C-alpha cells in the first residue's frame, strides 16, 4: 500500500494541474494521456502483437536506431578500452583524449554527421554510437587498469595464453566497471536518439516530440513522454537482468544487493 501513496499523490497533482485555467491548457490530464497512448501506440489486433500504428511508425524505428548505436558503442568501447587499459604507455597516451571525448557535447555534432553520412539512418546511429561509447570506453579502461598485479603474475607463471587471459581474467575482472559504463551509455543513447531525430527526420519519437509540439497537439506530446518513460523502464529492466546474470559471481562475492 505504502508504495502507491507517492504515485497516487503525484497523479492527483498532475490531474489538478491539468485543470488549471491557463497552464492547464499545456498539461493533458493523466487519463486522456493514457487513452491517447492506447489509441496511438496499442491496438486490439493480435495480428500486430497488440501494437498500434504509431508504434510501428515511430517507436520501432527509434528503438532500432538507439539499440544499434548502443550496441556499436558497447562492442567498440569494450574493445578499445581493453587495448588502452592493458598497456600503461598506451593508456597514458590516450587518457586526455578519452577525457575530452567524455566531456564533448556530442549532440552538437548532429549537423556534422548529416554532412558526413548522408540523411538516412546511418548518421543517427553513428551519432548515438559516438556519444555513448565514451563512458563504456573509459570504464573498461579503468576496470582493466585496476585488475592488480597478482592475477597477472599467476597468468605469467602458469603461461596462460593471451586469449585466455583476455577472456578469463581481464574481461570478467573489468566487468563490474564495464557495466557501470554501459548503464550510462544506455541513458545517453536514449537522449541522443531523441536529439538525432530533430533534423532531417520523418519518423521516430524525437520527431513526434517536435511535431506534436509544433502542431499544438499537447495530448500527443504527453503521450510521447509516457511512451519514452515505458521504453526507458523496459530497457533498464532488461539491462539489469543481463547485468545480474553476467555479474552473479561478483554480486555473490561482494554481497551487494542492487
Amino acid at each position, binding site marked *: 500500500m*505504502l*508504495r*502507491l*501513496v*507517492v*504515485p497516487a499523490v503525484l497523479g492527483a497533482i498532475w490531474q489538478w494541474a491539468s485543470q488549471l485555467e491557463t*497552464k492547464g491548457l*499545456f*498539461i493533458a490530464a493523466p487519463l486522456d494521456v493514457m487513452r491517447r497512448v492506447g489509441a496511438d501506440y496499442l491496438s486490439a489486433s493480435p495480428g500486430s502483437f497488440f501494437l498500434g500504428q504509431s508504434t510501428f511508425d515511430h517507436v520501432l524505428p527509434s528503438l532500432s536506431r538507439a539499440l544499434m548505436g548502443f550496441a556499436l558503442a558497447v562492442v567498440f568501447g569494450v574493445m578499445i578500452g581493453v587495448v588502452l587499459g*592493458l598497456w*600503461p*604507455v598506451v593508456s*597514458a*597516451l*590516450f*587518457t586526455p*583524449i578519452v577525457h*575530452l*571525448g567524455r*566531456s*564533448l*557535447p*556530442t*549532440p*552538437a*555534432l*548532429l*549537423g*556534422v554527421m548529416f*554532412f*558526413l553520412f548522408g540523411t538516412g539512418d546511418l548518421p543517427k546511429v553513428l551519432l548515438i554510437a559516438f*556519444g555513448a561509447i565514451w563512458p563504456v570506453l573509459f570504464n573498461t579502461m579503468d576496470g582493466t*587498469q585496476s*585488475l*592488480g598485479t597478482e*592475477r*597477472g603474475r599467476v*597468468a*605469467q607463471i602458469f603461461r596462460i595464453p*593471451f586469449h585466455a*587471459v583476455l577472456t578469463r581474467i581481464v574481461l570478467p575482472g573489468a566487468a563490474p566497471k564495464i557495466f557501470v559504463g554501459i548503464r*550510462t551509455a544506455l*541513458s*545517453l543513447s*536514449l*537522449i541522443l*536518439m*531523441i*536529439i538525432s531525430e530533430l533534423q532531417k527526420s520523418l519518423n521516430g519519437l524525437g520527431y513526434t*516530440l*517536435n511535431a506534436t*509540439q509544433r502542431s499544438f497537439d*499537447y495530448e500527443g506530446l504527453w503521450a510521447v*513522454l509516457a511512451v*519514452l*518513460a515505458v521504453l*526507458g*523502464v523496459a*530497457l*533498464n529492466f532488461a539491462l539489469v537482468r543481463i547485468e545480474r546474470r553476467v555479474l552473479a559471481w561478483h554480486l555473490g562475492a561482494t554481497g551487494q544487493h542492487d
Partner: protein
Amino acid sequence: MTVKLGADPLNTRDRVLLGCLGLVGTAFLGEVLLRTGVVSAVGLALPSVVLAEAGGLLADDGFLEAVGFTVRELALGLGMATVVGTLLGGLMGASRTASVMFELPVEILRPLPSIAVGPVLVLLLGSGMLPNAITVSVACLWPILFNAMYGVQAVDKTAVQTAKTLRLSPWTIATRVKLPAALPFVFTGVRVSASIGLIVAVSVELLIGSGAGIGGFILLASTSGSNLDVVYAATLIGGILGVLISLVLGGLERLAFPWKAGLAQ
C-alpha cells in the same frame, strides 16, 4: 604476446608528457591524413583550422556570452539537483518507509530521457534559462540521489549508537552525524552529474532552439550554411569546458574530503 597485468604505473611526469604527446600526435596525424588526401570527406575539418577557429571563438563576445549562459544553466540545474537529491536521497537512506514510498516513482522517472521534459517545461515556463536548468537538474538528480542514499546507509553504526547514548535528538543525529558522513558521497554524485549535465545542457539548447547557450550557438552555425569549422571548434571548446569542470570538482573533492578519498567511489 605477453601481457603484464597491473604493470608498474608510470610516474606523473611521464603520464603528462605522454598525454600531451597523444593529443598533439592525434591532431598531427589527422592533419597529415587530411592534407595528403588519404582521408577525404565533405564535413571533415583540418585540426589546425578548427584550432584557429576555436581561438577566434574565444575572442568572440557572442560565443563567450553563449558559454556563460550554458555554465550558469548548468550551475543552476546542478544546484537544484543537489538540494533535491540530497534531501530526498538522505530521507530514503535514513528511513525504510520513505525508501519504500519513493521507490516506484524513482524507478519510473529515472530511465526517462531527461531532455524529453524540456519542451513541456518551455510550454509551462516560457523560454529562458529556467526550463533548461530544470531539464539539466532532472538528469543530474539521480546520481546525487543514489549517492546520498548510499552515503546515509553507509554511516558508521557505532557513530550513530554513540550519538544515541549521548542522548542526542534524532534531528541532531541526522544533521551532525549522518549528513556530514554522507557528504563525500553526495559530492561524488555531483561530480558524476556535472559531466552528464553539460551534455544535457547543450542537448536541451539544441532541442528547444531558442538560440541561447553553446547549443544555440552551434545550431545557428550549422544552419547558416557550410560553417562546419565553427561547429567543430565550438564542440571542442564545450569538451574542454567539461574537462575543466570535472578537474575543478575533482580538486574540490580532494580538498574538502581528503579523509574519504578511498571510500567514495
